[in-house]
């Protein structure tokens, strides 16, 4: 039986052979970086996810001997179409890489949240860099934030400028700031305004409070962002389920499933660009207002740690 790790290696070898650029991220990348003990899903960034050759790739897997089976998963699986994938949707597939294999989950990002440029690990380029993983982990799940901080720790020697963006431990942040050249400080502070507070901080307790406010802002932005995709999918899915022809997913080959899903999103209206439709500035402002309330803070304080829109909702 193929384990999730074996499946990841098998799949990534084939992606590389097919010439499709990709990077493994999230849980499996955290296993690679020594930060996550258990995960089964394989998450990949696939910049060409909306291109026809990606579907061709999965079809080719179905023709292998022994045969693979590839299927969309029941929920939240936007079609592998450029119109959706380039607007931040993710697509979720199940794959079986041999007749009696376990079901493997593959989650595909084309434009991963908060990632401006796809960087790869220098140690093994099949994995996304620590910086990319840390950006993707800025969610509203408590368990993700220790990973952000730990990736920052790992970057201290490797890439101090990026460490400054991710460290969550106040003393470590102060230590790295202390030894960073002024151009590195300036550039990092452009991306993380909280760093501008370091020269005048009144110690680690003071800095902890600013770090909590900053984290709460990222968490709330992610909540607002995610809610839009969730709501768009729910609305679409409810309409689709009422249709007499509803059946999802089917046991058909992946291309037939894909055509079925494309037809459904056309007929029952799955919003292509939830962020664009709601407006990024409006989403960010709503999140900022909520973060102030949740932190029992003030607008003036929040503005001191608030990153640029391009950082949080690129």
């Amino acid at each position: 039986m193929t384990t999730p790790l074996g499946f990841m290696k098998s799949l990534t070898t084939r992606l590389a052979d097919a010439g499709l650029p990709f990077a493994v991220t999230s849980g499996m990348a955290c296993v690679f970086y020594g930060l996550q003990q258990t995960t089964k899903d394989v998450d990949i960034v696939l910049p060409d996810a909306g291109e026809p050759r990606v579907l061709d790739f999965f079809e080719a897997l179905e023709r292998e001997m022994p045969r693979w089976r590839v299927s969309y998963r029941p929920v939240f699986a936007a079609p592998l179409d450029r119109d959706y994938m380039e607007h931040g949707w993710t697509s979720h597939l199940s794959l079986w890489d041999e007749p009696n294999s376990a079901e493997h989950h593959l989650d595909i990002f084309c434009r991963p949240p908060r990632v401006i440029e796809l960087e790869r690990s220098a140690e093994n380029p099949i994995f996304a860099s620590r910086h990319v993983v840390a950006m993707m982990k800025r969610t509203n799940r408590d368990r993700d934030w220790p990973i952000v901080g730990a990736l920052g720790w790992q970057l201290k020697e490797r890439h101090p400028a990026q460490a400054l963006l991710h460290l969550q431990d106040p003393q470590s942040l102060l230590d790295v700031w202390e030894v960073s050249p002024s151009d590195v400080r300036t550039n990092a502070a452009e991306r993380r305004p909280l760093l501008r507070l370091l020269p005048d901080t009144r110690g680690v307790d003071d800095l902890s409070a600013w770090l909590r406010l900053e984290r709460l802002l990222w968490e709330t932005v992610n909540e607002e962002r995610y809610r839009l995709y969730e709501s768009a999918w729910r609305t679409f899915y409810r309409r689709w389920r009422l249709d007499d022809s509803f059946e999802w997913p089917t046991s058909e080959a992946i291309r037939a499933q894909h055509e079925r899903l494309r037809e459904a999103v056309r007929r029952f209206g799955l919003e292509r660009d939830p962020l664009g439709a709601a407006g990024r500035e409006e989403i960010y402002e709503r999140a900022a207002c909520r973060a102030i309330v949740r932190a029992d803070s003030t607008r003036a304080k929040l503005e001191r740690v608030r990153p640029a829109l391009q950082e949080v909702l690129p």
Partner: protein
Amino acid sequence: MSDETAPPESEYPEAYYEYLARTMGEQQAAWARLSREERETELTLLHLTSDSPDDLALWPPELNGGRLPG
């Protein structure tokens, strides 16, 4: 483009593992001390012997946590 300038996995200072223990727990910190090969071996054993939960858990409850047809 890649990120880091020190490719080999290096030993981290003790303070790093203390940070992991403080934020993720002692077990996670102990696991992080293993070599990459040892970590992969442990994860493989875990996958072969238990049905650990899906990593993705934010689906709407009406959609059964993303595991079953709606």
